[in-house]
């Protein structure tokens, strides 16, 4: 019986010793977990706040709307967009030569990232007479034409984030001679450095 108690005490002692050791190990693990949690939170915060706010889609949509308003109002082409004389139709010279001025657009940007040497916008409007036709009868455009190629591969996802953003709009409008036109507007906004990382 005595032996058992001694053994029991010894056993208790061993447990106690182990428990103290375990406590220390737990506290080390605890700090390791804290560091892991902190690292995780830091990474999440960095990912969230480290990326700039991407407003290019909104900007491209506003630009497309603005050009649509500039060309047509209430379903009719604005005066001077397409001129008809003796059965010959042509684009109005003012729109053809000065689209930015007629639509009150200014493509100047801040002088950062070498943007002063590369226009950060593109706007194009194609006029189709027949539905389904792939050849426009008239075309207007202004800005950086080099970015048009990106519109064909402009898709959602991480890999495409650093490409300029494209927006395409289509609408019908009547000309002065009541001819119906399908107008396709493409607007592109670059400004990648300030909107994507």
């Amino acid at each position, binding site marked *: 019986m005595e032996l058992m108690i001694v053994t029991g005490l010894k056993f208790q002692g061993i447990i106690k010793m182990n428990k103290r050791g375990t406590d220390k190990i737990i*506290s080390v693990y*605890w*700090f390791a977990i*804290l560091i892991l949690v*902190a690292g995780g*939170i*830091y990474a999440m*915060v960095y990912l969230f*706040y480290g990326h*700039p*706010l991407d*407003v290019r889609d*909104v*900007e491209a949509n*506003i*630009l497309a*709307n*603005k050009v649509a308003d500039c060309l047509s109002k209430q379903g009719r082409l604005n005066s001077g967009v397409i001129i008809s004389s003796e059965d010959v139709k042509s684009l109005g010279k*003012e729109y053809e030569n*000065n689209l*930015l*001025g*007629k639509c*009150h*657009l*200014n*493509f*100047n*940007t*801040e002088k*950062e990232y070498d943007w002063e040497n590369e226009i950060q*916008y593109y706007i194009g409007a194609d006029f189709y007479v027949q539905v389904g036709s792939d050849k426009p009868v008239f075309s207007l455009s202004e800005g950086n034409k080099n970015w048009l190629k990106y519109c064909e591969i402009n898709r959602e996802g991480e890999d495409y984030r650093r490409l300029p953003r494209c927006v395409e709009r289509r609408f019908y409008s009547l000309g002065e001679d009541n001819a119906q036109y399908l107008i396709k507007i493409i607007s592109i906004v670059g400004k990648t450095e*300030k909107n994507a990382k």
Partner: protein
Amino acid sequence: MKKKGTILAENIMFIILNLVFITILMLFLLKQGSGAIVIEQSYAKQIALLIDSGQPGMEIILNMETAKKVAEKNGIDFGEVVNVNENIVTVKITSKSGYSYSFFNDVKLDNLYPVDKDKDGIDDSYRIKISGYNKNE
């Protein structure tokens, strides 16, 4: 007695280190959430987009309470937080930083200034008035 004291000191150290850790984490999150760079960027882009979608005659009142708080903390007069030079909006709420973003709408703006939108005696909003188009036709 000595042994117990040691355990207590260890526990106190453990609790203090935990508290220090949590405090640092909270401060980091708060600092990131109210970071001047994020606020400047957000307001500069918002203002540029508002101007882009605006038309002559429009008056836009933008609540900039957050920017005002940070600007005043950094000793910047709220009346100098937003500046428009040609077609570039700059928001600056610290003496070192500042964020600029351009807008494409070729409009003339009246001078931008703070207004009291909520009628609570605090000028924490900005008035942006589009007066007309620039003559480039």
